[in-house]
Every structure is written in structure tokens, then in C-alpha cells.
């Protein structure tokens, strides 16, 4: 999916453009967006892999209840992507099935 197509363009003027890092990839986003919104807008639905079955997970409740969107942010593990606001240069890392951070495997 093309990221640009998932941002609404009508009726809105966004904040300052920023970039964050998703594992090693650069992601363009806007000040005020949550990490979850920024990643979804760039077409990234998978935010981690589970420990037991190695299954992909993404945004589910979107409001901080389900803890499915846990990522590592600037070295701090298990942060909720849906409740964290992006900061310029922020390093977002995914949890792999083997428990390591920073890869999608």
C-alpha cells in the first residue's frame, strides 16, 4: 500500500513534517501523530510478532487497552504505539518472534 494514499488530504493542515525510524527504515510523518498512525499511514500494518506462535500483530483497540501494538521506542521496550506521539528522529523497533528487538522476523 502506498503511504501517501492513506493520509487524508481534505479539510486538514498537518503539523511540522518529521521522520522516525522503523527498525532501519525511514518513515515520514507529522508532528502530533501517534506512532501507530504514522506507521499505518506508511502502509506498515505489522507492529510486532508474538512470542509463542510467531504471529503478526497490529493496531487493534487503538486506545491503550489491548497492548497489541507494543513496540520498543528509543530503547524502552513495550511501549504502546497507539498512545505514543512521534518525535523527530525517534527510533521505533519491532519485537521479533525470538524476543529480539529491531527486526520483523
Amino acid at each position, binding site marked *: 500500500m502506498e503511504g501517501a494514499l492513506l493520509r487524508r488530504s481534505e479539510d486538514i493542515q498537518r503539523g511540522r513534517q518529521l521522520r522516525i525510524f522503523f527498525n532501519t527504515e525511514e518513515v515520514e510523518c507529522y508532528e502530533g*501523530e501517534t506512532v501507530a498512525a504514522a506507521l499505518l499511514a506508511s502502509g506498515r500494518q505489522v507492529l510486532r510478532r508474538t512470542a509463542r506462535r510467531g504471529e503478526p500483530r497490529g493496531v487493534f483497540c487503538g486506545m491503550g487497552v489491548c497492548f497489541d501494538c507494543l513496540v520498543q521506542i528509543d530503547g524502552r521496550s513495550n511501549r504502546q504505539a497507539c498512545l505514543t506521539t512521534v518525535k523527530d528522529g525517534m527510533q521505533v523497533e519491532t519485537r521479533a518472534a525470538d524476543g529480539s528487538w529491531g527486526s520483523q522476523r
Partner: protein
Amino acid sequence: MTESSAVIVGAGPAGISVAVTLAECGLQTTVVDENPLAGGQVFRQPPAGFQRAASAVSDSASRRGDELRRRFANLGDRIEFLGNRKVWGLFDSRRLAVANAAGWRMIQAERLVLAPGAYEFVPPFPGWTTPGVMTPGAAQLLAKSMHVLPGKRVLVAGTGPFLLVVANCLHDAGVRVVGVVECTTRSEALKAIPGLLSNLALASQGWRYLRRLRRAGIPIHTGHVILDAQGQEQVERVRFAPCDADWRPDRSRAVTVEVDTLCVGYGFIPRSELAQLAGCDMRWADELGGWIPATSEDGETSVNAVYVAGDGGGVAGALVAEYQGTLVGLHIARQAGAIDEATLQARRREVVRRLKKLRRFRRTLDKLSRVRPGLTELATDDTVVCRCEELTRSEVDIGVDAGCATYRSLKVATRLGMGPCQGRMCWPAMARRVALRTGRSMEQVGLISVRPPIVPMSVGELAEPESAETIRSGGSAT
């Protein structure tokens, strides 16, 4: 210590309404919320720095939200708003442990108002953990607040009027909404029309949502239920089928649609964990979404100086939440001596009258959307039912059949509810399954056990509370 007359947890319609009512009576309050801005989920705003064009669509609900937030902002000198804060614990019924990104601190509340709101009920079904399956609320937040589309081709499913709101919102945002799947059968919905017409304003709002979907050519499949979501890394297909009055599907008549996103939710569950931590007497109220603290009409719980307002005290929507918040605010204002008895009674009467006018409408909706047994049968043996611990239904059933019939015993035996969500996602559906499987009542099966920290905190974080200066937003002395 805070000088506030009350600490309010939650800045949705109920919490804002409590704070505004108290501030208008001249009293100081402190409001704590997880989000950076006030509004809660229903009145969630775009982030600071985003500017909406004046032409942006507004309906009566969003105008109500704008009005409530404007009053909240205008009374800012009396309302200390602590955004981006999570309450991770509650001690001695009114001592709150409040965390932000920098650390945490204790806030002693002279009076505590819990206005935590509700979250969506999604019973497990095959494929419900696949990325692209999300709650209607999540999709709405993305589209309305973040101005990001949850996907390109979306199916909206579950039950309740909120589905119509979200389907409209997504359609307006430019998403291809391929349909709405609603469990309630057409004949049951038709029978509810007289009850719904008891409130013409709300009924016509619902009618407008329906008509707009019809004009957009979006089909509404009443009397249908989702069977499963398919796809490896992302949802690719969703199957649904006609269901009976108990919402049991006729699998032989399943329909498949190709979508990249499934928004699914079957009503709302009150967030009860803080009321439980405060030691409030809890009661099971099926028609109001689950376990709620027992309260008086003015929101007093069984614990001295602890109040509840809004969906957290029983799901009834934003308008009821706002009125309940006013009642709690007036009650506290009287307690604090800020208004006299005559003023209290006069204002109270008016709010109670408005709440009564909503009663028949609310009861009709509650009856329509009450959870039916078919929903607890959608999962198969190998469906993950505990999203955190990845337990399958058969693994939990083994525990149940071995004699575990409460949350606590199942948690010990199977790890159900042991993960970071602490049973909030799995237990509402699994409690129903345990009740059906063992022939016990929901009261006997019971509710989740809650203990702090109620959000994940590392030992390091717990050991090092930050200084008051870094965590308070400034303003009132500490």
C-alpha cells in the same frame, strides 16, 4: 497534596462535565487523562498543530463536543489538566499513582471521580488477531483524529448504532466501505422502532446515518455475523453468514468479501479497574456492558468520597455521561459548600428530568444490543482467545473442565489474563463461555482481579518516581 476539590480520572464527556460543573461553582479540580488533549474517545480532537478547515463536516454530536471542550478551556484557571498521564495504581481508595513519560508521582485526592469510559467488546473468532482487524473505535480515531485511513477496503461489523457512525465517518474520509454487518435481525430492529422514537432527536440522527449509507450504496447486512478473517500478514478476506435471534450463524450460507481491514465491535464494556482498586462494591449489569460499581443516582459509590460518572459506571453513551457528570459535580459542589441546598435541588431536578427523557430510548438500545450466546461460539478449538498469552480456546477449556470456574483460578491454571492487558480483552468473552460451559451465573464466574501496576511498569520505573516538577503541568502549588 493538591488543593483541588476533586481529582477526576478521564477527560471524556463525563469527566469534562464534572470539572466544568465544579469550576462554574468556583471550585478547583485536577483532571488526569491518557491522551494529550481533553475530549476522551468520543470527542477526540486532531492533535495540536493540526488545523481543520472551517468547511469540515460537523454533526450535532461534534458540536456538543466542541461546546463542552470550549467551556473546559475557558475555565482553565480552575481546572488543572494533566494530559498524557496514566494512573497505574490507586492506594487507600483515594491516593493515585500517576505516570507520564518522565516518571510518576502520587496525588492524594480529597474526592475522587472515576470517569474512565468504556472499551469495545470483541469476542474471539478465527483470524481476529490478524493485522487489519481492529475495533470500529480504533478506525474512527485514525480517520477522525489522526486523519489517517485505517485501510482502503473496509468491512464494518458487530452490533449497535456506533457501527453506523463509524461507517459514515470512514466513507466521508474516502475509505471504500464495502458493507456493514449487523447481528440484530431486521424484524427485531423494526419492533424496536417505537422505543427508539421516544427520543426524536437521537432517532432522527440514527436515521440520517442509515440514509447516508444507503445513498452511498453501502449495503447493511442485518441479521448477519462475522465468521472469520483470513490472511497471513494482513486481512485479505472476511466471511460472514446470516444468524438467528441468538446470533448463531448458518454457516452453509456464508458470504466472502475481499477487504484489507475489518472493523469489528459488539458494544462496549465499562472500564472497571480503578473502581475495583478503590474497593467499590461491584455489580453485574448485562444490559449496561458488564461489571459496574454500585452507585446512587448522583454517582456515589460504596466508598466514601469516590464517585463514578459516564460509561465506566454503565455504558449509556456520551449524552448520559455528560448529564451524570453534572450530577456528580453538583453533588460535590454541595458537599464542599460551594452551592446551597436550593440551588443543588433546582439544578439537579433539571438534569434528572433530561436523563429520564432518555431512559426509554436507552433501554430499547440496551435490549437490542445485549450480547447473545452465538457470539461466544465463534471461536474454534485452535482460535487464540487470550491475545496476550496466545492461549487457544481448547487450552482454556481444559482448565475449565478441570474445575477452574473463576478468573483467578483460570489465570493460575492456564495463564489466561496474565499478559499486559490483564484480562481486559479476554475475560469478558471467556467469562460468558465459562458460565455457559459450567452452568453458573455471570455473578458466580466473577470479574477480573486487579492489582497495581494496572499498566506495565518496569521495576526500575517503579523504583524511581520523578520529582513533582517534572510530572505536574505547572500551575497549582504542590
